[in-house]
């Protein structure tokens, strides 16, 4: 159960090896935290993350998880909830890709859509069923401001996040009053290994900033969180820029 100070006792992260997930897990550590489920593809990074989080009072379960294979998801989610309620579930997986590569290999664009959108829907729907049954819990979905308005430079990625974002936002409304809190997180440019080598956009943040914003959002029951928070107003403006002008903007 999440306690009066918004501290979860159990957390499950899908896409646990993302840097944002790592930063978030560090922040959710507390004497109250009893169980962490790390769902990710097998890797040394996943195992060392598990070792770093395990304590006398916090157990860590590691699950093999492939976001691009929806048929396998129901088994993984059963395993994640096998030991009891999960207070906070995080959908943290996603691929950024590169528009030039997508253009050269349309199959890779399909793959990105499969992971980011189809995978998100697949995990989100199944987790929502569990959370509705348990009558409490939070689902955190990592979206992106890229999903708010398509840009020529990364519209495939943007469209996958747009789909995920609309899905998660609608799910949040569907679950209103069910005791389940859905939080959609829309970071701007995040400096992680996923974005390494890309030119930094204005208002860029680090994974720790995103994690801080999520913890704060949990505390205040926020439904939509922008990181940095000023991004909300920037996007609000950009949304209304005419297309003829928008496509010429250097963003």
């Amino acid at each position, binding site marked *: 159960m999440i306690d*009066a100070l918004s501290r979860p006792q159990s957390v499950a992260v899908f896409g646990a090896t993302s840097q944002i997930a790592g930063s978030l897990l560090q922040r959710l550590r507390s004497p109250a935290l009893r169980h962490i489920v790390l769902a990710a593809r097998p890797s040394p990074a996943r195992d060392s993350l598990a070792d770093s989080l395990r304590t006398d009072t916090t157990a860590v379960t590691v699950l093999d998880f492939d976001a691009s294979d929806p048929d396998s998801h129901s088994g993984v989610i059963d395993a994640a909830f096998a030991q009891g309620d999960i207070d906070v579930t995080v959908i943290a997986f996603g691929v950024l890709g590169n528009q030039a590569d997508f253009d050269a290999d349309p199959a890779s664009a399909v793959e990105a859509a499969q992971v980011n959108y189809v995978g998100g829907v697949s995990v989100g729907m199944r987790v929502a069923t569990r959370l509705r049954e348990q009558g409490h819990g939070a689902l955190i979905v990592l979206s992106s401001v890229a999903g708010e308005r398509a840009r020529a430079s990364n519209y495939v990625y943007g469209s996958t996040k747009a789909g995920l974002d609309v899905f998660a936002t609608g799910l949040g409304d569907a679950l209103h009053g069910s*005791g389940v809190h859905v939080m959609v997180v829309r970071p701007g440019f995040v400096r992680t290994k996923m974005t390494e080598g890309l030119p930094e956009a204005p208002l860029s943040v680090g994974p720790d900033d995103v994690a801080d914003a999520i913890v704060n959002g949990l505390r205040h029951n926020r439904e939509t969180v922008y990181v940095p928070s000023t991004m909300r107003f920037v996007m609000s403006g950009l949304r209304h820029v005419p297309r003829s002008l928008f496509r010429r903007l250097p963003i």
Partner: protein
Amino acid sequence: MSDVLLSGWGRTAPTRAHVVEVSDAAHVAAALLHAPARGLIARGLGRSYGDPAQNAGGDVLDITGLTGITFDAANGVATVAAGVSLDALMRECTPQGWWVPVTPGTRQVTVGGAIAADVHGKNHHVDGTFTAHVARMALSLPDGTLVNVYPGDALFNATAGGMGLTGVVVEADIQLLPITTALARVDTDRFDDLDSLMAAMASGDDQYRYSVAWVDAGTRGTLGRGILIRGDHANAADIPERKRTLAFDPGTLATVPALVPNGLLNKASITALNEAWFRKAPRQRRDELQSLTAFFHPLDMARDWNRMYGPRGFLQYQFVVPDSAGHVVQRTLEALRMIGATSFLTVLKRFGAEGPGLLSFPRPGWTLALDIPTGVPGLAAVLDSLDELVIEGGGRLYLAKDSRMTPRTLELTYPRLAQFRALRAEIDPNRRLNSDLARRLDL
């Protein structure tokens, strides 16, 4: 019958449950038999601060429909349905010259809730807890059978303070206390520091049936200065005839509106309230006659006062430590002042002997209770460190107030927990009774 979000008095961590209304013992048994996989828990007037009367994804039994008082004014024994509030019981019996022998700071708790939390009052050092005055409980067991349990029974001791997890109390016989007036004779003393306050309590509490201290937990003034309020029932023979009365008709002065913003009660406002409260108390006053309402339940004058803390809510931190760990009281006030976690309702009291309830909170020593808004930065870590002091000192936290302790803290501080768990496993193997508190703490 409907699905609703429920939280405790502190308005933190709401969860959804299916609320089932009941009006008699047969309904209660049926509800238990049809309890869903996530179980059922009884809920009275929702005055527990944290999560004991909520049950995420399961059923919550609204017992306030269990009403009815049969009172025998010859021997002062009241047979009361579990959903009856202490307020209703007092309105019925006080005019007949009988008083509810143990009352917490509010009358707005049910008899069932008072048993489940084994509540205490200002007279714990003399009269013990609520269940010390219960002569019989009718308990609907998890399998739906209705049994009478009596003091000394294993089931009685597990149910007293058992947070509703041994069965649903349907009815209880309560031995009331004879009184000749509905007035209290009150002595008030103001102390400029914690040491002198605690010294006066340690040496003088035995001379009073009722004793409690209010402590200034703002950020101004000497740490722990306070007001000691002690008294007893006023005897009709000792007061002028025109003042004698058994009338009991408490009113409500105000209702706090539903939409109070977060942060109205903050460090500055709470400190100012503390300052004013301290200054308005007399340095010393003797034999003041007060109504029983004013003496026992001043907060009941404001309805829904928990809304004052805004939608983010608040928590109450209440611990007891033995005399040998009395320093924890001061350490707590210091640590909370350091992070600006001010409290207006800060109550210090000495407890008497421990009762037989397996999870009953009181034990001899000092108990301190503070109401703190949950938004204070750094609060979680400070309370965790205070838990360690309580553990080291041989004390414990009160389940009816708790909304954040860990299973480890519970295990280290409730020596009879294993006994409770064993009994629960025996009478309720399928966990028909369950609550968010039980899940959080592995009760």
